[in-house]
């Protein structure tokens, strides 16, 4: 899957969970610090990613989900690992 496509998908997932406008979400911004996203919503994002991409996200991965860019990177890594 292309990176751009994944980015757009994740952005809209994050926007839906956090109830933020997708246009306002900058990919590199920290969700918890800049948008005050709640810790449970951050976990919800992890579950949404697991469901959508069929990957398994461990507790130590969670800090990387704090930005959209980080989530995209993690998902790509996990997908690549799954494929190999």
């Amino acid at each position, binding site marked *: 899957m292309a990176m751009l496509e994944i980015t757009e998908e994740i952005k809209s997932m994050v926007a839906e969970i956090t109830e933020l406008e997708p246009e306002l979400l900058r990919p590199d911004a920290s969700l918890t610090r800049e948008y005050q996203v709640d810790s449970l919503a951050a976990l919800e994002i992890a579950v949404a990613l*697991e*469901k959508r991409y069929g990957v398994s996200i461990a507790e130590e991965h969670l800090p990387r989900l704090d930005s959209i860019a980080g989530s995209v990177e993690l998902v790509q890594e996990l997908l690549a690992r799954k494929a190999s």
Partner: protein
Amino acid sequence: MGREVVITGLGTVSCFGVGLEAFWRGLVEGRRGYGHLDCFSTAGVPEPVGCRVRDFNPEQYLGKKGLRQLDRNTLLLLTAAHLALSGMSAEELAELGLVIGTSFGSLSSIYGYEIDINREGPNLISPVKFPNTVLNSPASRVNIAHNLTAYSCTICNGSTAGLDALGYAFRAVRRGDYAAFLAGGGDELNQFIFMGYHSLSLLPGQGRSSAAPEKGVPPGEGACLLVLEEEARANGKRRPAFARIRGYENCFGEDGLERAISYILDKTGVEPREVNLVVVSAVGTRPERREVRALRNILGRQGCRPAIFAPKGAVGECYGAGGPLQVTAAIMAMREGMVPPSAYLPADYDDFDCGGGRLQKKEINYALITSVGCDGINSALLLQKCC
């Protein structure tokens, strides 16, 4: 003897709509608030009816944000709290206690979570929905929404839960532990409760030998929260009081309601003949025999014939909201000097003044509110008119 406790705020959400006026208008007009249910699957039920809050739009009261993850039960309660607390200052909110009564509370969230565990697998369940599964979740959301830090309690007591929450708050204020409390209850009507009601043959017309099919009380939903306050404090703030709570008791067992009512009368010194309105919980099921017997033994035997009003025929069996809605109806009857017609009242209550299905003008000084639960719990509360 403790402080006097008055009611100074009301927040009501019923099948007649959001707000006190809609509720009272529905009662005065003698309407029955039930309708055909199409919001969840009722497969196998020939005539699925219930008293759902129609066109309920919580966003109108609560804003758009943060509602996505909340269950209906919580949204109903948050709306009632919004109404009851309007105009209160931040300082007042900071010392306000909270107690909410519920019968099924988070049932749909708990079952929903169980279903997700089964269907989606335990690895894909939602972390955000997990806290909805605890029964104190709706109350805690009210604490969070209004920054109520003083006290948070939930009471899960079947049909008497809402009245028990009011009694709990009444005692805390009377004792002087808290100056004011937000108290009441709520329950939602969902598929599980409806199908449970149906499977126990409790829907109108099902399995009732004495009642015609159009009689009986369908399940309902709603939320009703009241502000209880120390009377001297309310007077000091020039806040008008709707009514004064004089007593409350909860007793278990077959003769529990009789004991509860006589304890209240003994402790307050109010004579049975002074009670001129009883708002009963009549829904046409077995536990009601306790209610009928208690009223006969305590009021009837003394030759008292108070007016009887049964609001559940109009708004349905709303469980946690039921008791507080009864109290609200009694308050309005006192203020307006009239008793609405009961949309449904079994013949067992005919020893008393049932109003013959018409709106009656009546001066009311003391109103007794009774509630009986299917599991043997009974509660009663006595209201006095505030001059």
